[in-house]
């Protein structure tokens, strides 16, 4: 039974595409046939993060308009045999998305894939709306900081009221992925604590992804960060994938490592 999961946030730049890439790769690594769709028409990034930007021939909009078949647009990932990418158009914009077209494409994908991950654009307009409308579940991404938490709250409200599941009277399961969690800044009080975020959003926590230089490195070389075994962020994404698949893994809040005397004298961080 295929599952359509939307990765959304409201706020831009919090880590939706990074997370969509990492979680999709993680699901494929665990043996599930997964496709990740870029809904950010006109500002596409998913193909860059996945490293397939030089292999895009046809895209999501071509398929919606009937210019190409779904299989002509799907790009098979070179590293993982279970992973496929449906890139979107860079020359069009979100007006090119139609509700019928999206419904049809997702319907076709449901026949073949175990997981369909929808990488939503930022905002609450058409692109974000269509990315979430047909979803079975939502992962709301937020940074531990006031503006993204407020936007996430708005998005949670929209998911609960404007999705198709909501229109049918069913509650959409939602989880929270807290990204770019900078331990030092949280401990200094510059960023919100997990409890504070939970107090406002009241949505179960899928995972906490620490702020990590490996994320930028991964996007530069076009590979999902979960495939970087040395990365803290990558490991946190792998745990999140485990929780998505039902593994019993309690979420641990990252804590600052203790700095020894020499480190403090020399100004080194642990």
């Amino acid at each position, binding site marked *: 039974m295929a599952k359509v999961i939307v990765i959304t946030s409201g706020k831009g730049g919090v880590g939706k595409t990074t997370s969509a890439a990492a979680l999709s790769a993680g699901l494929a690594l665990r043996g599930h046939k997964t496709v990740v769709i870029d809904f950010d028409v006109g500002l596409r990034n998913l193909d860059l993060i996945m490293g397939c930007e030089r292999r895009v021939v046809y895209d999501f909009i071509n398929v919606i308009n009937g210019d190409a078949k779904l299989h002509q647009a799907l790009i098979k990932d070179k590293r993982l045999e279970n992973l496929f990418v449906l890139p979107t158009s860079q020359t069009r914009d979100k007006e090119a998305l139609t509700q019928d077209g999206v419904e049809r494409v997702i319907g076709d994908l449901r026949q073949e894939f175990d997981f369909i991950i929808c990488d939503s654009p930022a905002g609450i307009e058409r692109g974000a709306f269509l990315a979430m409308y047909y979803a079975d579940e939502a992962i709301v991404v937020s940074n531990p900081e006031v503006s993204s938490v*407020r*936007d996430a*709250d*708005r998005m*949670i*409200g*929209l998911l*609960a*009221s404007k999705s198709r599941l909501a229109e049918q009277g069913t509650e959409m399961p939602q989880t929270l992925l807290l990204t770019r969690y900078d331990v030092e800044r949280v401990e200094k009080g510059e960023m919100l604590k997990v409890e504070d975020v939970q*107090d*406002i959003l*009241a949505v179960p926590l899928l995972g906490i992804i620490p702020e990590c230089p490996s994320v930028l490195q991964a996007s530069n070389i076009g590979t999902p960060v979960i495939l970087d075994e040395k990365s803290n962020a990558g490991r946190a994404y792998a745990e999140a994938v485990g929780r998505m698949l039902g593994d019993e893994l309690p979420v641990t809040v990252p804590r600052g490592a203790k700095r020894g005397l020499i480190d403090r004298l020399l100004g080194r961080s642990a």
Partner: protein
Amino acid sequence: MSGNEQGARQVNSITEDSAPFQLRAASLTLLTLKLVNPADPDFFPRLATMLSLAPGFYRNAPIVLDLSGTGARPPVDLAEFCARLTELGINPVGIQRANAAWERAAVAAGLPSFPTGRATEAPTASKEPAKAASGGTRIIAEPVRSGRQVYAHKGDLIVIGPVSHGAELLADGHIHVYGALRGRALAGMSGDKTARIFCRVLEAELVAVAGLYMVNEQLEPALLGKPAQIWFDGAAMVQQGL
């Protein structure tokens, strides 16, 4: 359209206690209709469409015509204009901010002139009022998320859960929040000055009773973050810990 609060002053009654009447200043919340181009042929069709979005909210509503936007336009036949407004179900009761020419036309049409008061931003009547057209108390047992607007018509509003920043609660009666109130709460929307606001954790952006409002900065610092009630005692807004 915007809500308008006429200045509230307690005037000493000039008669003795045995008098058959009492003359006092009252604070009323009224809708204003700002006229920009009343001669526009689209005026009434567009107004009719707007009123149809929330018919219960506007039915028989007293309305003040704000004439500040008419500029140098000559006055229209206000008697006939008002008759057409009445046909749409709203009741013009006076004018505001008119220049001399419009003022004369209004007097001729029997419309009194209201002094300008401080305008509060009344919430735009969204689709919410159309859905909750039935009266009675409304209970919401889930968090009210940012951007959501809830209006309890002709009754109280009870929320069991937090109310986020950017959310709006409106009620003709009282508002109770069994959780943190971080958004806006406007009680007594139809003019009931006895309406009160109660909450478990006071962190509201704005509170209002029958159009009289206070923003977060005007809340008692000692009450912030604590259980509180807010009401109007006839002279001023009162805040008290619960």
